């Protein structure tokens, strides 16, 4: 089997990339999806707040997904569901498995759109027994919203990521008692609006600078002890708080799902845990592109769609016209910046470029400095926070004259 473009993953990134590639003239596109329906995690995100940037509408997850599914179906884009990709090679052979067997698709270009998965409790090193009743927030979300089952009655949520906050509200609405949300950092990693509408609306306390001392229970969780931590994240004795509960949710971050990428020999960036890409979202393996949460974890699906369209258009160009010669300079993170994406900027592209970055800590009245070797420019931002991706735009001329790009954030009040 041969296709111009194979897209691995039919979530928001894969769907937007497929539509963009098609509209850029590449009609021979295949989307491979491991679940029985496309739409990815949006299927279980029944809350609203999606699409404000892109559609100027306040959509629920399924509604946002529907817009892209409709566009893909209108174009007759081929989508293989219930199909799992077992292997990808650097020469763009995609091995798939489904009920009809194992087969390989040879592609001119591949777009990685596998998304991310939740960091598990196992990655956290928590003392105590291993009773039932511990769920990642996304698993609990699937139980409630897709399967119609309540995972428990008295719930403690560890980590204040957005999914945890959303689930605090959702479980409360479904009749569970959410006792608290505990966060080890002095600030929440979730959006401010979610603290307001998911916790404050329902009087659910948020304990900042708290961690888990112990999870108790034989068979099923029976309680959790939280403890306050000092500035070095060490527990402060005597500050323990105990909660009787039957369920503990973990909302402790997302990790790009890059096993296929890694085995294909595509270079990864330890900062983003996704591939190293250029402005076209092309990886260092020619003809392999990446977009969405498999590339770096996004806060908003609107930006996933935007990024996927860049990858889709570029993959179409690659599949139809072949590769171009590049003249790369590197984009680096300076002071108070954890990563910059893309990591490589192509001067030959001769086009303006938006660079995305994340800050290490929150600042008010921040000054973003973009150093290109040849010149320096500064951009002011009212407020920046680690949970919210920022961007700066560089013109074609600025990139043309650059030796490198380095982004730093300074000044302002902490």
């Amino acid at each position, binding site marked *: 089997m041969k296709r111009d473009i194979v897209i691995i993953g039919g979530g928001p990134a894969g769907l937007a990339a497929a539509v963009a590639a098609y509209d850029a003239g590449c009609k021979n596109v295949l989307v491979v999806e491991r679940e029985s329906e496309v739409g990815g995690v949006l299927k279980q995100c029944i*809350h*609203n707040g999606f699409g404000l940037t892109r559609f100027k509408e306040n959509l629920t997850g399924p509604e946002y997904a529907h817009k892209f599914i409709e566009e893909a179906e209108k174009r007759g884009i081929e989508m293989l569901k219930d199909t799992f990709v077992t292997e990808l090679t650097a020469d763009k052979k995609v091995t798939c498995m489904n009920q009809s067997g194992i087969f390989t698709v040879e592609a001119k270009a591949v777009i990685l759109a596998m998304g991310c998965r939740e960091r598990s409790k196992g990655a956290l090193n928590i003392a105590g027994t291993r009773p039932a009743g511990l769920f990642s927030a996304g698993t609990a979300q699937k139980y409630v919203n897709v399967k119609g089952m309540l995972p428990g009655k008295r719930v403690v949520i560890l980590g204040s990521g957005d999914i945890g906050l959303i689930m605090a509200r959702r479980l409360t609405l479904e009749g569970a008692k959410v006792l608290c949300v505990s966060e080890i950092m002095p600030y929440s990693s979730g959006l401010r609006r979610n*603290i307001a509408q998911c916790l404050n609306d329902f009087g659910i306390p948020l304990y900042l600078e708290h961690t888990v001392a112990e999870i108790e229970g034989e068979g099923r969780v029976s309680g959790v002890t939280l403890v306050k931590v000092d500035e070095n994240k060490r527990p402060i004795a005597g500050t323990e708080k105990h909660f009787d509960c039957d369920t503990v949710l973990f909302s402790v971050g997302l990790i790009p799902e890059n096993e296929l990428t890694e085995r294909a020999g595509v270079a990864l960036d330890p900062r983003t845990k996704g591939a190293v890409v250029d402005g076209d979202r092309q990886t260092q393996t020619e003809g392999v592109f990446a977009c969405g949460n498999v590339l770096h974890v996004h806060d908003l699906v609107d930006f996933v769609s935007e990024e996927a369209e860049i990858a889709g258009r570029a993959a179409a160009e690659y599949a139809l016209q072949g590769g171009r010669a590049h003249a790369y300079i590197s984009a680096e993170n300076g002071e108070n910046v954890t990563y910059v994406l893309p990591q490589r900027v192509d001067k030959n592209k001769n086009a303006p470029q938006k660079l995305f970055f994340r800050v290490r800590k929150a600042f008010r009245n921040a000054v973003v400095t973009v150093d290109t070797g040849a010149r320096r420019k500064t951009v002011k931002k009212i407020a920046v926070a680690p949970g919210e991706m920022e961007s700066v735009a560089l013109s074609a001329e600025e990139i043309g004259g650059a030796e490198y790009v380095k982004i730093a954030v300074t000044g302002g009040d902490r």
Partner: protein
Amino acid sequence: MELVCIECPRGCLLSAEKTEGGVSVSGNFCPKGRAYAEAEITEPRRVLTSTIRAAGAMVPVRTDRPVKKSMIFALMKKIRAARLTHAVAIGDTIMENIDGEGANVVASASYGGEPCSI
């Protein structure tokens, strides 16, 4: 009153006070923030999202407009008791005038009437 605007991910920090002429609002980046703060001071409202049980599936639903925050648990009770027995398309009304003020519960996804994974 200090508020966090929930209208968009920007999450503006608002300050709202009742005045003789109405409500004075500051800190908002856009008009939505003003409207939100005014409603928070007078009668807070939220769009309610949930699911309705159907044969072999949960169908995601939402209210088609914000409903009174004080009514949310009463409305949840009605939504939890409802059963969907027929096919619906995305946007179709499933429960009419659920709050007595004209808000309908509409489907956020299509449901074929058959068991499906959504």
